[in-house]
């Protein structure tokens, strides 16, 4: 089965047309539906999606804990689909950490190296190095139960990094930490990735985590890969409604394509180069790209202020258009905190050029 095929330049690990089904007969559940993805050498790649979208399943296929129902997993172009996890140069940081309770911190970190049969001297040196890397030198003799959550997290990282894997898989490793510690660990993880140069595949359902840490993000939903791209791509050019709404907040407006733009239900036309010639479309625009102008100003869309929600730095202004559809504008709060708007006030709405775009469903 191990048919080597030419690797795409710089590809670390790859899923090729992978399908994973659980259960049998009528109760079959398709966790992954024809997913193809190629993670590049040395990149910080994030699989982002709501729970149940298949991201953890994909990670387990990379690790070898599960086998795909069809399709293949390739490491550097080599088919490893049926290679057991203990023979894959891929390590995992588990969500629950899965530290061995009967072993000390140092023994936990040494585990993979010992199993690989590395000489004792090398193991000791590498354990030292790893302890230093995660700044846990003083706790080498402790048992996992004697450590705090953040310390356990570091041990789990050191343990998975110690054998210097080709790819490190991280399954929502920060979800058990409180907010402050999570922020610290985000920076820490990024540092470790840069220092070691190892390819990280990071699974999370937290879009902010994904945006701040990743080189590239793969957005998943319902077992399918929706979009792959840099955080900027994903945020500014979402390919469909799901991606647009899952990452950040956004407005959707029903519209009809007309030459050179789209016509909203209110009758206003928004200029949009490259839009399709005709048919019903959905227009999306981020709240921070919505501008308020005086009512009746040329080129603006008439709207009424429905509600104002004060968020400190921002004020969210909920608007109703003439046809009843809703729109949120995020306005920077002025120094006084008063946006100078009142409920029921008539205003004009414009979009920052290039911000509004059409998304598929």
């Amino acid at each position: 089965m191990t048919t080597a095929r030419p690797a795409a330049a710089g590809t670390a690990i790859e899923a090729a047309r992978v399908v994973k089904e659980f259960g049998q007969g009528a109760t079959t559940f398709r966790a992954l539906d024809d997913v193809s993805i190629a993670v590049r050498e040395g990149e910080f790649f994030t699989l982002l999606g709501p729970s149940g979208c298949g991201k953890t399943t994909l990670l387990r296929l990379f690790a070898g804990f599960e086998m795909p129902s069809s399709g293949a997993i390739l490491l550097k172009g080599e088919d490893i689909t049926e290679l057991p996890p203990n023979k894959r140069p891929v390590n995992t940081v588990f969500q629950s950490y899965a530290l061995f309770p009967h072993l000390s911190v140092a023994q936990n970190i040494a585990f993979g190296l010992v199993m690989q049969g590395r000489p004792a001297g090398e193991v000791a040196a590498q354990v030292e190095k790893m302890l230093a890397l995660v700044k846990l030198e003083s706790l080498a003799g402790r048992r996992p139960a004697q450590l705090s959550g953040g310390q356990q997290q570091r041990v789990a990282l050191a343990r998975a990094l110690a054998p210097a894997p080709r790819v490190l898989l991280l399954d929502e490793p920060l979800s058990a930490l409180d907010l402050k510690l999570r922020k610290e660990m985000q920076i820490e993880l990024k540092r470790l990735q840069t220092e070691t140069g190892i390819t990280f595949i990071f699974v999370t359902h937290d879009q902010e985590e994904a945006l701040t840490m990743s080189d590239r993000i793969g957005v998943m939903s319902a077992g399918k890969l929706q979009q792959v791209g840099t955080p900027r791509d994903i945020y500014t050019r979402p390919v469909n409604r799901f991606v647009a709404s899952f990452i950040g907040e956004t407005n959707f407006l029903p519209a009809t394509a007309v030459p050179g733009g789209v016509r909203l239900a209110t009758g206003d036309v928004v200029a949009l180069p490259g839009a399709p010639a005709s048919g019903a479309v959905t227009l999306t625009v981020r709240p921070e790209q919505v501008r308020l102008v005086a009512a009746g100003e040329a080129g603006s869309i008439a709207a009424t202020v429905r509600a104002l929600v004060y968020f400190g730095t921002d004020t969210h202004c909920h608007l109703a258009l003439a046809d009843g559809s809703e729109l949120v504008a995020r306005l920077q709060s002025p120094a006084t905190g008063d946006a100078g708007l009142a409920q029921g006030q008539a205003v004009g709405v414009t979009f920052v050029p290039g911000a509004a775009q059409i998304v598929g469903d």
Partner: protein
Amino acid sequence: MSPAEQAQIRRAARNGWLLSAPALVILALAAVGPLIIVVVYSFLLPGKYGNVVWGFSLDAWRGILFTRDIFDGTLAWADANLTIFWRSVKLSILTTVFTFVVGFPTAWFIATRPPRGRALWLFLITIPFWTNLLIRTFAINEIIRNEGLLNTTLMRLGLISKPIEMIYTDGAVFVGMTYVYLPLMVLPLFAAIDRFDMRLLEAGYDLYASRWQVLRRVILPIVKPGIVAGSILVFVPALGAYVTPRILGGGKNMMIGNFIELQFGQGRNWPLGASLSVTLLVIVTAALLVYVRYANGDDRNGR
């Protein structure tokens, strides 16, 4: 599913069976298998000096309830057997009820101790549970026999002039069985009470219930699975008791267990012993099935 996945599932099932195989072989040879032979033997004829003669017969099954007159061959109720059955059932039920009556307060007491003391009290009830039944029966025997501690003390105090004949009575067997089977009642009751949410009592009292009403309407219905489990754990071995009635009941006050043994000893009627064993097994299995239904049907207490 891919062939690899199917192979994985098949391998898991195969490993499950392979790993269980040694245990299953031992159990089949020295526990379950022989039970089937008992059923076969119950349809055979007794040998003159014990064992069986091969030949189909329903005599052993008839012999459970009837005796055949030696002279005219007519069937009559086997009064002696019926007495033994009645005693077994009566004593087992009495034992079950009484162990519950005293076992429930005991279990409640243990479960409501502060956490540190609780482990000790639980340990104190576990020791008799694991102590040889023979030793415990013997300990009771030492107390209630004619020259036992109770009689000698009473005589020395001048309260009685000659020993009260307590031993070798149904009463002695009842006392003995209650004594030896009590831990079997207390432990499952404790397990149920331990899971009981004491805040429900506050709710009960808050809604004007008296202590008795709280016990009847709140506690007992919720710990019912524990009560059923304890009752089965006491009733089943009590019905098949052998050691306790043998020591405390003497030769006259036999229970089913001793009656079965008799058929393999002096009685020299292995088929009858076999049919009696099968009967006992059927009764016990029926009781267990009732338990399974209760335990499964009553899942409200988060079991």
